C-alpha cells in the first residue's frame, strides 16, 4: 500500500483533489433545483443501468484493460433526460463500487468526479440550447443540434480531464494515446450521442424506462461481443506462436528466428507505407514463413553435413508445405503467397516456381530480405552471427539479383530508426561458435525453372554452388 501511494505523484493528487472539489461544488450547489420525484427516479434507474453495464463490461473484458467507453451512452442519455446535477450522479454508484487499483479511494473518487463533471457539462450544454423542451415535444430534427452539442461537450470534457490526469500521473506512451483519444472525440461523440439520444427519445415515449433499457440491449450485446473478439484475436496470435513453436521443436537452429523475421518484416512495412491491416498480415506471413519445415523430416533439418540430392529436394519443398498447411486459415490471403514464394529470387533462379522481378508477390520479396538478414545476424551453434552493418552490405550486394533493391533499402532505412536486437547468443554458443570466413558468395548457378519440372536440376546446382564454402556455414542461403 505504502508503495502504491508513492506511485501516484503529488501533482496528480492535487489535480484529483481539485477536480473532486469542483465536481462537489457545482453539483451540490445545483442540487436543490432538482425537485421533481420523476427526475430522481430516472436518475436512480439510470444509475442502476450504468452499474450493470459497468459490471458486464468488466467481466467480458476480464484481464484486459476494460473499454471504458462502452457504456457512455447511458451517461449521455442521463445528460439529456436529467437536470445537470442529477445527471452528474448517474455514474456515482458504479464509480464508487467498481473494483479499482490502489490507491483505491483516490481512484474511485476521481472516476466519480470525472464522469460526473462530464455529464454535468453535457447536460448544461443541452439545456442551454433548449434541448429539454425540444426533447419533451420530440421535435426530432430540431433536437439533434442540442443533443450533438451535449455529446461533444461530454466527450471533450471527459478527454480533457483524462488528459490532465495522464499528464500528471503517467509518462511516455500513455500520454501520447491521450492526444489520439482527443482527436477521436467527435467520432465517438457522434456514435455515443446517437445511441444516447435514441434512449432518451424512447424513454420519453409511452413505454418509459422499459423502452429506454431496450435501446441499450443491442449496444450491450455489441460491447460484449467486441470484448470476446479481442480475446479470440489474442488466442489466434497465441495459436500462431504455437505453430512456430512446433517448427522450433523440429528445428532447434531457428529458435526465435521466425518471430524476428516477422518483426523485421513489419519494420520494413512501415518504410514501404503499408497500412496497419497489411502490416499485421505481413507479420503473420513473416512469422509463419518457415512453417512448411514441419513437412521436412527432422533428420534433414538437423543434419550437419552437406545434403544429398534427394535430401535437398525434400528441403526445398518446405515453402509448398507451408502454403498447404495454412490453406485452411481464411484471413491469410496475401500472406499465403508470401509463404509460398519467400525463396524466389529476383533473377528467377529461386524456388518453387522460379518467378522473377515483380512477378514475385510483394510479401515474399519483403520476407526474403528479412529472412536472409536475420539468418546472417543471428548466432547459431555452428557459426557466429555477423554484425548488422556487414549483413546489410551483403544484402545490398545481392540486391537486384537475389533481393528486391526496394526492400533492401526499406530494411536499411528501417534499421536507421530502430535498433535491431539480433538473436541472443546461446550460452554455450558464445564459446563454441567458430568465426566463419566471410567469403562473399556469388548467387548460386541455377537452371531457371518454370514450375516444379526442373526442381531436381536446380537442387543439384545449388548444392554444387554451396559445397565449396562447406556444409553448415552456407545453410542460411538455403533456409
Amino acid at each position, binding site marked *: 500500500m505504502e508503495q502504491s501511494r508513492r506511485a501516484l505523484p503529488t501533482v496528480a493528487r492535487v489535480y484529483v483533489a481539485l477536480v473532486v472539489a469542483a465536481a462537489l461544488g457545482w453539483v451540490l450547489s445545483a442540487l436543490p433545483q432538482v425537485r421533481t420525484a420523476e427526475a430522481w427516479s430516472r436518475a436512480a434507474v439510470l444509475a442502476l443501468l450504468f452499474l450493470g453495464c459497468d459490471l458486464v463490461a468488466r467481466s467480458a473484458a476480464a484481464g484486459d484493460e476494460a473499454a471504458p467507453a462502452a457504456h457512455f451512452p447511458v451517461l449521455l442519455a442521463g445528460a439529456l433526460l436529467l437536470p445537470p446535477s442529477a445527471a452528474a450522479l448517474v455514474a456515482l454508484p458504479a464509480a464508487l463500487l467498481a473494483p479499482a487499483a490502489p490507491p483505491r479511494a483516490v481512484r474511485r473518487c476521481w472516476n466519480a468526479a470525472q464522469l460526473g463533471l462530464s455529464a454535468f457539462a453535457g447536460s448544461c450544454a443541452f439545456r442551454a440550447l433548449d434541448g429539454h423542451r425540444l426533447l419533451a415535444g420530440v421535435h426530432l430534427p430540431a433536437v439533434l443540434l442540442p443533443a450533438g452539442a451535449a455529446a461533444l461537450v461530454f466527450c471533450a470534457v471527459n478527454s480533457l480531464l483524462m488528459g490532465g490526469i495522464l499528464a500528471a500521473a503517467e509518462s511516455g506512451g500513455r500520454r501520447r494515446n491521450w492526444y489520439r483519444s482527443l482527436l477521436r472525440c467527435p467520432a465517438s461523440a457522434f456514435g455515443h450521442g446517437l445511441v444516447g439520444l435514441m434512449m432518451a427519445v424512447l424513454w420519453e415515449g409511452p413505454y418509459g424506462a422499459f423502452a429506454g433499457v*431496450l435501446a441499450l440491449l443491442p449496444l450491450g*450485446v455489441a460491447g460484449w461481443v467486441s470484448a470476446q473478439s479481442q480475446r479470440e484475436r489474442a488466442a489466434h496470435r497465441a495459436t500462431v506462436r504455437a505453430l512456430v513453436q512446433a517448427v522450433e521443436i523440429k528445428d532447434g537452429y531457428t529458435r526465435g528466428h521466425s518471430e524476428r523475421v516477422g518483426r523485421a518484416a513489419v519494420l520494413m512495412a512501415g518504410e514501404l507505407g503499408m497500412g496497419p491491416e497489411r502490416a499485421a498480415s505481413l507479420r503473420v506471413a513473416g512469422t509463419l514463413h518457415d512453417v512448411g519445415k*514441419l513437412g*521436412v*523430416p*527432422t533428420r534433414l533439418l538437423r543434419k550437419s553435413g552437406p545434403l544429398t540430392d534427394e535430401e535437398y529436394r525434400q528441403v526445398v519443398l518446405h515453402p509448398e508445405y507451408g502454403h498447404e498447411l495454412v490453406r485452411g486459415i481464411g484471413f491469410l490471403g496475401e500472406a499465403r503467397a508470401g509463404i509460398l514464394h519467400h525463396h524466389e529470387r529476383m533473377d528467377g533462379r529461386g524456388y518453387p516456381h522460379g518467378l522473377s522481378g515483380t512477378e514475385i508477390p510483394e510479401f515474399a520479396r519483403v520476407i526474403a530480405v528479412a529472412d536472409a538478414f536475420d539468418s546472417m545476424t543471428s548466432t547459431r551453434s555452428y557459426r557466429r552471427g555477423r554484425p548488422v552493418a556487414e549483413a546489410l552490405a551483403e544484402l545490398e550486394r545481392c540486391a537486384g539479383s537475389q533481393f528486391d533493391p526496394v526492400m533492401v533499402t526499406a530494411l536499411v532505412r528501417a534499421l536507421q530508426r530502430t535498433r535491431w536486437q539480433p538473436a541472443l547468443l546461446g550460452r554455450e554458443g558464445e564459446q563454441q561458435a567458430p568465426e566463419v570466413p566471410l567469403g562473399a558468395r556469388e548467387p548460386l548457378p541455377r537452371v531457371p525453372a518454370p514450375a516444379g519440372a526442373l526442381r531436381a536440376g536446380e537442387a543439384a546446382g545449388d548444392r554444387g554452388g554451396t559445397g565449396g564454402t562447406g556444409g553448415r556455414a552456407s545453410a542460411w542461403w538455403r533456409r
Partner: protein
Amino acid sequence: MALVRVVHALAAVLCVGLAVREAGWWALPLFSPPLLVSQLSLHRYRAVRATRRQTVASLARSTEMAGYTLPGHARRVADLASGIGRELGLGAKELELLEYAALMHDIGQLSLVDPVPGGATALLSRPEQRRIGRLGSEVIRQTGVPAEVAEIVAAIPEPYRRQDGSRDPGLPRAAAIIRVANAFDDLGCDGGGREQREEVVEQLRQDTAHEYEPHAVEALARVCLRSGADP
C-alpha cells in the same frame, strides 16, 4: 451465437420501430446506423472465431504433414473422442476441450527425429509416450486454448489404473477418452470393415483392467459399431 444474433436483431428492430412511432420517420435514418454497426461487430466476431478454429486445425494437421501421423488421424481421433464424450454425457464445455485436446494430442511427436512407423503411438513404450505428451502440452500451453487442454494432452499416456490397481484421481476424463480413441485409430484405421473394428474393440476390452477406461471403451463400441456406419 446464432441466438445472440437473433436477439440482437429483434431488439434492434423493436427499438427503431418504437422510435419511429414516437418521433416520426426521422428516427429511421438516425438510429439505424449504430444498430447496424453493432450487428456488423457480431459478424466480425464470427469471422475471428472461425479463423482461430482454422489455425488450430492447421496446427493439428502439422504432424500429419510431417509424416508423423497418418492422414486425417487427428481429425478422426477428434471425431471419435467427441462421439465417446457425447455418449458419456459430457457437457458442451468439456466437449470443446476434448475436441481441442484430441486435435492436438500428437504435436509432441514433432520432437522425434524419426517418425514412429504408421504414427502408432499406442505401440510405443510408456516413457516415450510420456515425453511426447509433455512436449506437446508445452506447445499447447502457448496456444491460448484453455490450460486444461495441455493438462489433458500430458495425461493421455497415463494408464487408467496404476500398477497396484489404484486409480489416479487427478487423471482427466478427457485424457482417458482420447487414449481409447487414439488406440482405436492406431490399431484399426487401415480401412478395415465392421469385422476389423469389432476385433479392435475386443482387443481394447482385453486391456480394460489397467490400460483403458472400461466405460470409454464401451462407449467407443457403441459409437463405432452403431449400424455399421463408419465412425
